[in-house]
């Protein structure tokens, strides 16, 4: 698209006049309402992510309590979410560590300071496994509550001994209120008075779906309105009792497709020579049963970090050619952005990508070597995507070029097999096949034709022709459609003047040509759109359409640039055919007339186009009459 014309001329700092005086120092000032507005309203791309931030805060709070050593025996973390449509409120209640008055001031009400991050940093050296259980780190996720709510109320009681229950209230501006409250249980309850524009989240089904999406893998049971069963699974499918089965079920439910193959991902070690690097990776890749067209690509991952959903449709963690692969991963080493909706493409990101590629390539090689039928199914199911990427990506092309099958007039063939059937050239059409005439003419030249009507196939053929030899010769590439002279060559008509006159007297347009196979005496060739125009005229004249639609379709027909004379088709007589040759240089008597009638009707029937049932019946009738005359002549 063109550049935005709305941009006003920018004044760059370098264009401002410079002063020769020594510079004075200053400090940045903070405009708190503006900052709050930016963080609460513009950091996140949509309102639903606020739910994730609140879940994550609750989750971390429960982890803090579990790690504290003060949790009661058998402590079971939980988060219950209640919605009240009438009151327009959402309530999040956890039994986590709660907050003291100081913690509220230091963390809840201090932007950019994260209790979780500080605890995580403390744990990182001595208890890295515990540190990994904590998700939060930025210290402003709580602000996202104001994406959803005009008023936020927190009632909390800390696990610290003798901590009083506290009530904290804010309305998204720079101030808040805090006072004593009534609460016996340790934990926190956050009540959001939902803004009108976020009221849709008060719909139970939608809320449940959103919560499940974010927290399905999180080891924190989340219930809705105090239900007995949590709405989230609480663990990823690969941690289940029967991972293969559970992953399969997960793929069917989440991606709506049974996978052709599932590739499990696991921790990956890189040998750095002097050291090893371990990437803690879990998850799976899978190949869906088929792709739809070559521009229809997958190559996407759903990414989780420590069980918390970060994003779908991450396309940079898989190699660009792997567009027939999808997957789900969880890697605690990946760094989310502050809004936690994307991932930093830092050095770790690069290592994770390499780990995934290494495991994918290894698995695909294993399948190609050990399960050729499965590999064929993958290549067949994703032929369009694979050919598209093979045309674009040299490395991937090299991986698949010799095993990829293409649709041809003789079925699916690899290009190597195809070349063995042709004369060292790749003959292809970009139009859909289906015309028996085209197929016949191509086969008449002794070669099958590749169907390159799908995007990408032609590019793939070009790359193959440019990089491969056949019998030590360069591979030629020949496009057959829109190249009529290649198949039908004009020929002199002098010897068939009487024949031409005979046809013209019957209103049949006719041309003399030469084409293979020479066993075919004549072909009827129609212009593009002839079928549609004939159908439309039949429908219009037969009152088969409601009048207004007949009018609209009639307008379309009128607008098509087709020569009226060509609509009935042009009969091409093959001068290389012995029957046609036998008709040369002689007047058309009754017997020859019957032969010409037969050629015409066979040509019409064989073309198979623009014929109504009545036309076909008429053609058979004419054909029968002509054959009858021939028999009488005998």
């Amino acid at each position, binding site marked *: 698209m063109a550049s935005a014309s709305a941009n006003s001329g920018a004044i760059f700092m370098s264009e401002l006049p410079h002063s020769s005086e020594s510079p004075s120092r200053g400090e940045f000032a903070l405009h708190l309402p503006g900052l709050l507005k930016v963080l609460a309203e513009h950091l996140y791309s*949509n309102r639903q992510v606020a739910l994730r931030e609140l879940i994550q805060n609750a989750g971390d709070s429960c982890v803090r309590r579990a790690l504290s050593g003060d949790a009661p025996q058998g402590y079971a973390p939980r988060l219950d979410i209640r919605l009240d449509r009438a009151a327009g409120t959402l309530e999040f209640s956890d039994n986590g560590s709660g907050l003291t008055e100081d913690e509220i001031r230091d963390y809840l009400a201090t932007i950019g300071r994260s209790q979780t991050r500080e605890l995580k940093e403390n744990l990182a050296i001595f208890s890295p496994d515990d540190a990994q259980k904590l998700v939060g780190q930025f210290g402003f996720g709580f602000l996202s509550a104001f994406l959803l709510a005009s008023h936020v109320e927190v009632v909390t009681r800390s696990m610290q001994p003798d901590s009083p229950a506290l009530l904290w209230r804010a309305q998204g501006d720079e101030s808040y209120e805090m006072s004593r409250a009534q609460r016996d249980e340790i934990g926190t309850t956050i009540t959001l008075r939902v803004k009108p524009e976020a009221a*849709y989240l008060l719909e139970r089904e939608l809320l449940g779906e959103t919560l499940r999406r974010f927290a399905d893998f999180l080891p924190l049971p989340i219930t809705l309105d105090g239900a007995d069963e949590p709405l989230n699974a609480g663990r990823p499918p690969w941690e289940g009792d029967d991972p293969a089965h559970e992953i399969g079920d997960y793929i069917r439910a989440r991606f709506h497709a049974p996978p052709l193959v599932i590739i499990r991902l696991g921790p990956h070690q890189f040998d750095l020579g002097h050291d090893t690097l371990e990437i803690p990776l879990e998850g799976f890749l899978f190949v869906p049963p*088929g792709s739809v067209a*070559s*521009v229809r690509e997958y190559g996407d991952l759903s990414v989780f970090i420590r069980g918390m959903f970060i994003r779908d449709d991450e396309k940079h963690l898989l190699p660009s050619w792997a567009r027939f692969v999808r997957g789900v991963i969880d890697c605690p080493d990946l760094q989310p952005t502050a809004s936690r909706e994307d991932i930093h493409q830092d050095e770790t990101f690069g290592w994770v990508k390499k780990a995934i590629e290494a495991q994918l390539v290894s698995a695909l090689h294993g399948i190609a070597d050990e399960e050729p039928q499965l590999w064929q199914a993958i290549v067949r199911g994703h032929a369009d995507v694979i050919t598209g990427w093979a045309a674009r990506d040299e490395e991937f092309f090299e991986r698949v070029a010799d095993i990829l099958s293409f649709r041809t007039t003789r079925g699916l063939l690899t290009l190597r097999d195809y070349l063995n059937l042709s004369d060292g050239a790749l003959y292809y059409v970009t139009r859909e096949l289906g015309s028996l005439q085209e197929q016949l003419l191509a086969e008449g030249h002794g070669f099958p034709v590749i169907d390159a009507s799908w995007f990408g196939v032609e590019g793939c053929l070009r790359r193959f022709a440019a990089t491969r030899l056949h019998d030590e010769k360069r591979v030629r590439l020949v496009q057959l459609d829109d190249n009529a002279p290649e198949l039908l060559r004009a020929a002199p008509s002098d010897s068939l003047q009487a024949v031409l006159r005979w046809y013209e007297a019957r209103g049949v347009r006719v041309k003399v040509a030469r084409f293979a196979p020479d066993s075919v005496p004549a072909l009827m060739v129609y212009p593009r759109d002839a079928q549609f125009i004939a159908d439309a005229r039949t429908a219009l004249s037969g009152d088969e*359409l409601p009048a*207004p639609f007949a009018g609209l*379709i009639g307008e379309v027909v009128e607008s098509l640039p087709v020569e009226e004379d060509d609509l009935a088709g042009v009969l091409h007589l093959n001068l290389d055919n012995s029957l046609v040759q036998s008709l040369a240089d002689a007047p058309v008597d009754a017997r020859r007339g019957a032969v010409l009638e037969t050629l015409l009707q066979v040509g019409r029937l064989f073309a198979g186009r623009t014929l109504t049932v009545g036309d076909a019946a008429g053609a058979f009738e004419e054909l029968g009459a002509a054959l009858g005359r021939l028999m009488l002549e005998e």
Partner: protein
Amino acid sequence: MDIWNWLYESIETHREKGDDSRLELYWTFREAMDFDEQNPQAAFAALEEGRKRAAALGDGWWTLFFEHWKLQNLLSKQRNYGAARDLAARVALEARKPQYAALPQRVCLQEDLISAFVGIDARGHATLIQEALDYMEKEAAPDVECFLCLLGLQSDFAEERALWNEAHALRMRLLARCEESGNEHHAMQSHLELCGVILNLPYAAEEVLDPANIGESDEVVPVAEGWVSRETFEKRMGEVESHAIRAQELAEKLDAGEYFSEIWMWRAHVGFMRGETEAAQEFFKRAIDRFFANGLLPAENFFAAWRTTYWRYGNFDKALQLVEDEEKWIEGTGQLAREARLARFRCHFKLALGTLEAADFEAARAKIALLGDPSHEQNRLAEVETAWKNQNSASAG
């Protein structure tokens, strides 16, 4: 039975029979819909693949199902009305056959054909379109989704002919239907469309004041092509804002990201018109960012809101640039009436800038000549020409 009932019943039947080939058609459709927003060309290719698969199975119903969604893609996403018209004519022709008599999609296919003509040149085909719409009103049962589409189409037809009161009434009727049936997708689209209709409503409702009758003490507010009373202005802007907010809420709920650029453009428009420039700038930036990030060409109203804002503030050079960009963006999509309108706008803004030349009129006339009924555009262009001549004689004097 509407199309969704047919679809879900078909899937259940295929599942019970273990007919994986036809279940695959459903997955193909789902996958195509995944692409619909971000890459409409890819979605179109996916739908074409589905059509081919259905045709290979000899399944005419599924074939036409995919054809309908290809048409929807061309009409709503790619906005290529010319291509849609050619395809819709072929598909409507096929759908006339007896084997499709009970196909629920048949009504949708007929609506697609009308829709294409409305988008190309509604005035030029007004009689045929009106007859077709009248016929459809008898065909489409009021309780199915097709009826909502039909009301939307009737309103589009009215909007294309600048019948703003009629368009407003039809959209409000559609909204009421959506309320009854709980159809939020159509409701969201209608709220958005209403923003554009209301923007033009003062002209239809004769709320635009004659400058000669404006007294010194009258509180008036400039709109694009005239002045309205403060009261009218507040009322209309309030309506546009509330429709835009409601559309935003529904778009967020439905996760319909492709509509945000237009929604924010309307919110920006209201802000600018009210002089709330800080908030308006923010919405405007978001609208533009989303527009350029999307692979989609937004609805014409997106540009109308954008252009009208420039117009109101007298930024004719930017308005002209926008018109020229819009002309490029819609090139080859067969929107003849819109192209003629844009050619007229070009003359209008050039007149305001004092750069209008005879060649601009020639170009506009050439576009207008392609219309089936050029009289409306000819008259509007004549108004610009008269003003141009007056401007020239004033400067000569």
